[in-house]
C-alpha cells in the first residue's frame, strides 16, 4: 500500500490545496498522520480513499523519513503494549515496520498503519476545526491543536 488519504480529507483541505501552490496533498496526509501518531489512534482501513495519491516522500519531506519511521515504531510499541525492555519483541516490531527496499524505507504493513493513523488523526482534526479557508488559518489552528501537549 502507498500513501492514501482518509476519505473525507480531500474535500476538507480542498480550498487550501487549490489556493496555495506551495501546499501539497502530502501535507494534508502528514498533518492528519501526525495527530494520529500523537493520539495512538488507528482509523478503519475502509475509511481510506480507494486509490493512493503518491508512492514516495515528496522532496520537502525526504529528510523527515527517518523521523516518521521512528514515530511509527514508537507508536506501535506503545499501541501494541510491547515490553520496551524485551529486546527480541522490539526488534521483531521494527522488522515488521521497516523495509529498506522500498523508497519510503517502510514496509507495506508500515505504510498501511501510517495511513490508518491518518484516518484516526483526521477525525480529531475535523472535531477541532472547520475546513480551512486559507493556509494561514490552517497553520494557526493546527498549532493550537498541539498547544498544551508538552
Amino acid at each position, binding site marked *: 500500500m502507498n500513501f492514501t488519504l482518509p476519505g473525507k480529507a480531500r474535500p476538507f483541505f480542498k480550498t487550501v490545496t487549490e489556493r496555495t501552490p506551495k501546499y501539497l496533498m502530502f501535507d494534508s496526509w502528514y498533518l492528519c498522520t501526525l495527530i494520529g501518531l500523537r493520539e495512538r489512534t488507528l482509523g478503519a482501513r475502509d475509511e481510506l480513499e480507494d486509490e493512493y495519491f503518491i508512492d514516495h516522500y515528496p522532496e520537502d519531506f525526504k529528510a523527515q523519513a527517518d*523521523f516518521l519511521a521512528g514515530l511509527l515504531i514508537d507508536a506501535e510499541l506503545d499501541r501494541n503494549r510491547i515490553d520496551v525492555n524485551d529486546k527480541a519483541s522490539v*526488534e521483531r516490531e521494527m522488522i515488521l515496520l521497516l523495509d529498506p527496499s522500498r523508497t519510503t524505507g517502510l514496509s507495506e504493513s508500515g505504510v498501511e498503519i501510517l495511513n490508518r493513523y491518518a484516518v484516526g488523526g483526521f477525525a480529531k482534526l475535523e472535531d477541532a476545526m472547520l475546513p480551512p479557508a486559507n493556509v494561514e488559518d490552517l497553520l494557526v489552528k493546527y498549532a493550537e491543536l498541539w498547544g498544551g501537549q508538552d
Partner: protein
Amino acid sequence: MSVALDEGPRWTLVQMPNGTGKTTTMTLMRAALTGADFKPDEVAALRADDDAEQGLFELRLVIDDKPYRVELHLDFVGRRASYTTTRAQLQGGGSEEGWQLPPLLRRLLTPEFTKLFVFDGEFAKDIRSEGKNRTTRAIRTLYRLDQLDTLKTEIAKLVTKEQESAAALTSAKEQKGVTRLANALADAEASLAKLKAKLKSHRAERSRLVARQEEIGGRIADRTAQDEKFAARKSRLDGELSTLTIRIAELSADSLAAVRSPAKVSPLLLARLRGLGQRLTTLQLPKTISQEFFHELAHATHCVCDREIGEKESAAIVAGAKKYLAEDQITIINRMKRNVRESEATGAEFADSAGELKAKLRERRSVNQQLEQLQQEQIASGDDELKRLVLEQRQNELRLETLDAEVAQLNTSDKLTQILEKLGPRNNIPLCQAEADLAKRRLAAATQTVKFTGAADRISALVDAVAAQALDNLRESVRVATNEKLARLVKGEPLRVARIGSSLELASRGVASKGGVSEGQSLSVAYAFITSLLGAAPYRLPFIVDSPAVSLDTRVRREVGDVIPTLFEQMIMFVISSEKDGFADAFYPREDVRYVTIWQDHGEESQMRDGLDEFRRFHAVEPGEASA
C-alpha cells in the same frame, strides 16, 4: 446366415415363407440405417432361442462408391444393443464404435424417412391419414427443406448473440426501447447544453464583476485621496497593511516548513523520538549482528565454534535469521538515532512561528477594520458616491462568492466532492457529460440491435416464403408424377391424387376422396407416390419392400411388376411364394435379377438356395393355404 445382396444385381427377389424373419430383417435394416436405440425388451424380442447369448446383424452399404459396414451387436444376456461402423476412410479400414454413417445421411435417415424406402406397409395406410402429415414431412426431409429451418435457427442465434452483446449497455430490443433511449439522450444533451450555457454566463458575469470591482476599488481610492482629512490616515493604514501582508507570507512559509519536521512540531514528539533512540541504545539495538551474517553462516561448512553445519543446521540458521534485522534496516535505525541525537530542534519552532503568524493575522484584521471605519466616517461626512460604491462593492463580493461556488459545482470532476455536495447530471457538467456519453452508447447499441433484429426478421420471413413456395412446387411436381404413374399402374380406374397436403387426397369418380379405396389401390397410390417422390430426389436410394404384391389382385400385380422395376436403381423384394404369380414372374424375362430362396427345414435349420429354378420350384404352405 449371411445373404450377400451387394454383388450387382439391380433387382433381388428374396423368397421367404412367412415366419422366417422377413419383418425382423426389415426392422433390423431400418435400425442399422438409422442407428436406432433398442430398449431392453426390444433386444429380448430378437432372441432366437434361450441358448443364444449374442446376436449380430451386419449391413453392408456402398455410399458414393465407398464401402461401409454397420454392425448391430445384440447382447441378449445384458439386453443391450450397440453398433460398430467400418469405413474405408479409416486408417487401415478399421472399425470404430458407434453408428458412423456420413453426416449428410445421418440427417436424412430419420426413422420415419427410412420407412419410405425400407418400405413399411403401414405407410400405405398412413399416407392418406389426416393429421399424420407424412407426405409433407417426407417431401421436406427428402428435399432438405428442413435445412431452411436450420438457417432460421442460425439467424435466431445471431440475433440472440447481438442482443446479448448489447445487453451490457441496454435492454432495448424494440423500436419503442430505442425511442426511449433517444429521448434520454436528447434530455441529457439538452441538460448539458443548458449547464454549459450557465457556466459560460457565470464566467462572463464574473469577468464583468472582477473588472467592475477593480474600477470601484480605484474610484474609492480616488475619493479618499481627494479628501485631505482622510488621505493621511488611509495612506498610513495602507502601509501597515502592506507590511503585515509581507510578514504574514513569510511566517506562513516558516510555519509550513516547521510543521513539516516532526521534531519541530512539538516537544512531545521530539521527546518521543529521543526516548526511542535512548531505549534502542539501552537495548543495544540494532544488534551488530545482522541477518546477512546468518545467511552466510548457513552456507558455510563449519560454524564459528568449529562444529560442522549440515542441511538440518543450515535450515535452522536460515529460519532463525528472520529474527534479526537486515543490514539496511540497521542502517535506517542507526540513521534515525543519529538524526535525533544531532537534531538541534527544540520542538517549539512550529508553535513559535505559528504564534507570531496568529498575532500578525490579528493585526491585519485590526488594520482592515480601521480602514473600514475610515470609509464609514467618510460616508458619514456626506460622501454619497462613496457610500454607493462601497455598497456595490459588497454586493459584488457576495455575488462573486456565489458565482465561484456555482462555477466550482458546475465544473468539479472530483468524485468525493460530487458525492459530498450531492451533485448530479442536472447541476454538474462532468456528470451530465458522462450521462450523455452513456446514453449515446446505449442508443447506438440499441439502434444496432433493433436494426439487426429487423433485418433478421425480414430474412426469416423470406426463408419462410421460400420454404412454403418450394414445398408447394415440390408437392405439385410429385403429385403430377404420382398421377402419371397411377395411370399406368391402375389402368382404367380413375384413381388420381387431387392434392398433397397433410395427406394424399384422392380425387376420382366413384371413389370418395378419402376412404373407399381397396388395400390394393392404397398400395398402388403409395408406390406411385414413393416412386415419384424418390425418383426426382437429389439422392438415389435403394427400395426394399416386404411382400410388395400380396394385397394386390393379379391384374394390378402384373402392372406393378411391370412398372416398379424401372423406378429404382436397386430393389430388394422379400416375397412369399404366392406372390410369384403375377408379380415375381414379371421379372423372369429380365436380366440382372438375383433370386434367393430361404426357408427352414424340418429340423428348423435355415437353408438358402440361389437361382431362378429353386425360386420357381419352391412352394411353402402359408397360413390359410392347403399343403402342396
